[in-house]
């Protein structure tokens, strides 16, 4: 593992050039194609950009992330790369503009390595819903990396890129981060622009970052937060620097341990590991107390009303008329639309479109959609009540380690339940993180979830950083994928 600060220092001191760094990473990406983490990847384009960046470094340019390689989840549109959202529907889609997240990171000096595989339209918890095949977890190739940002998590865990963008609707950053043993952060809803981020469920979708450490995640995240005039739902973030207090002691911070989450994992290895991580936080001076989120068990039912409802609306734009896949088999306009959608969407988007259409249909709207919006408010209020007395909440990210490829593909309900602990914070729009904190019985990584109050990303990053200063879980790489600075020379 190489920290971004060290990488920036070596780039600035000319111990390594951006071109040399990118050639090493390109070789790693090419040698690890079996992970299926990258979709669109253009080495010659990367080298061309790296040459430009080396010139900027020589000219003394001080962009905050100058020369830092990054790869983008294929949910963010990019001018220079195809954007598929993991779907046949967008198999050859070229965007005439960059997503704001991509543009801001380019402006900050990053160099794009390529686009990363994900579940189709970010719908899934294992990356097995990608039209382009599943991503493999570098810790065990027979297991899933989590989803929907599985390509992002696997690429960072395998040191193919030090940083990746990702998105989280019900846990799509935290769950894969936990399964792949890396650090992932989903910021406060609205704090990162979604202009150019392919929409799934608009009241939940949020962009975030996957990294090797809390410090790296914060360093990159602070470059993408903030109001964007191109996204009317983006908001001003009161903190522009998320890492200035990252080293602050956490002594006296009140941390709530979510009882309902713990009850679900009692007597398991995950429980032991989570409690051991909590003990470390206590050793750092945090005050730990068990707390209750009485309505959190309703998170999954609420989510599977609201997310499919919004998905059915958002995905209605794919009609074969304006862009995306168009069936060759039609004799009139209606046929063209129906056949394009039926041939272009995979099973999971179709399932969610149908559920969404049903819950929004006449006679069912109040019973499902309106009711779910009310329960969502109860879940949000549970969190806000706790944040009157606590600085942060912690618990597991997932109840278990990464499961085997194919284990849950025939059982959508079992797959949906993977997100039991991540969905509540998404429904409330709160910032949340996953940081690696140990290994389970199958020797796969397990993550600790931290949930903060609105706009308290800096506190989450601070607590995670202090934990990572006294532990080594985040420094571990899967066998055969470790990378030191010496390996780059």
């Amino acid at each position, binding site marked *: 593992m190489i920290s971004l600060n060290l990488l920036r220092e070596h780039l600035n001191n000319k111990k390594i050039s951006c071109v040399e760094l990118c050639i090493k990473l390109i070789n790693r990406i090419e040698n690890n194609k079996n992970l299926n983490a990258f979709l669109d990847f253009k080495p010659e384009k990367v080298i061309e950009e790296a040459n430009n960046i080396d010139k900027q470094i020589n000219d003394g340019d001080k962009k905050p992330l100058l020369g830092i390689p990054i790869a983008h989840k294929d949910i963010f549109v990019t001018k220079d790369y195809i954007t598929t959202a993991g779907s046949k529907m967008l198999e050859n889609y*070229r*965007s*005439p*503009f960059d997503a704001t997240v991509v543009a801001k990171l380019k402006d900050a000096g990053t160099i794009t390595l390529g686009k990363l595989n994900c579940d189709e339209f970010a719908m899934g918890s294992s990356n097995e819903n990608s039209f382009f095949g599943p991503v493999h977890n570098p810790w065990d190739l027979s297991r899933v990396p989590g989803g929907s940002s599985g390509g992002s998590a696997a690429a960072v865990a395998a040191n193919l890129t030090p940083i990746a963008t990702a998105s989280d609707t019900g846990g799509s950053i935290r769950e894969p981060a936990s399964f792949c043993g890396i650090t992932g952060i989903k910021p*406060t*809803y*609205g704090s990162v622009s979604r202009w150019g981020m392919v929409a799934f469920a608009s*009241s939940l979708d949020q962009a975030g970052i996957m990294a090797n450490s809390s410090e790296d995640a914060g360093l990159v995240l602070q470059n993408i937060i903030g109001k964007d*005039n191109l996204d*009317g*739902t983006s*908001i001003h973030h009161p903190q522009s620097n998320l890492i200035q207090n990252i080293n602050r002691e956490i002594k006296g911070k009140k941390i709530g341990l979510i009882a309902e989450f713990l009850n679900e994992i009692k007597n398991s290895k995950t429980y032991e590991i989570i409690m051991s991580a909590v003990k470390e936080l206590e050793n750092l001076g945090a005050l730990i107390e068990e707390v209750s989120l009485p*309505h959190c068990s*309703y998170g*999954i*039912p*609420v989510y*599977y*009303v609201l997310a499919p409802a919004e998905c*059915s609306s958002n995905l*209605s734009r794919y*009609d074969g*008329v304006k862009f995306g896949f168009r069936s060759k088999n039609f004799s*009139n*306009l209606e046929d*063209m*639309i*129906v*056949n394009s*959608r*039926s041939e272009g*969407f995979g099973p999971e988007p*179709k*399932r969610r479109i*149908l*559920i*969404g*259409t*049903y*819950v929004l*249909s006449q006679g069912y709207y109040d*019973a*499902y959609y309106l*009711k*779910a*919006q*009310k*329960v*969502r*408010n*109860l879940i*949000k209020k549970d969190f806000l009540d706790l944040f009157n007395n606590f600085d942060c909440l912690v618990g597991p990210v997932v109840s278990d380690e990464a499961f085997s490829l194919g284990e849950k593909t025939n059982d*959508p*309900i079992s797959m*949906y339940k993977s997100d039991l602990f991540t969905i509540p914070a998404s*429904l*409330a*729009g*709160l910032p949340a993180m996953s940081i690696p904190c140990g290994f389970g019985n199958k020797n796969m990584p397990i993550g600790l979830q931290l949930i903060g109050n*609105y706009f308290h990303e800096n506190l989450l990053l601070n607590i995670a950083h202090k934990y990572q200063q006294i532990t080594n879980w985040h420094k571990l790489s899967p066998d055969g994928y470790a990378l030191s600075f010496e390996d780059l020379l």
Partner: protein
Amino acid sequence: MIENKKILKIASLARLKISDDSINLLANEFNNILKLIDQIDKLDTSDTLPICHPLENLTSYSKVDTKHVSITDKTHRNYSPDFKDSFFVVPKIVE
């Protein structure tokens, strides 16, 4: 319990075609998902307001419209299968 006929009606509203050999499996999955989401019915929400967005009170939804150059004809041409005289050329659907 939703019948196959109802699912086909919903599919038609969603502009999706369901094949005869997948309808039974889909109906089974659909009903299992409905069982899962029906759990919210247990809760009394008579005194609770619905929220459509987690930060309802914090977000401004509108901005002043200002004229600016967005995507040019040149870009449209580069990114379109067929583009002529500032228009996208599409298949004829009206005789």
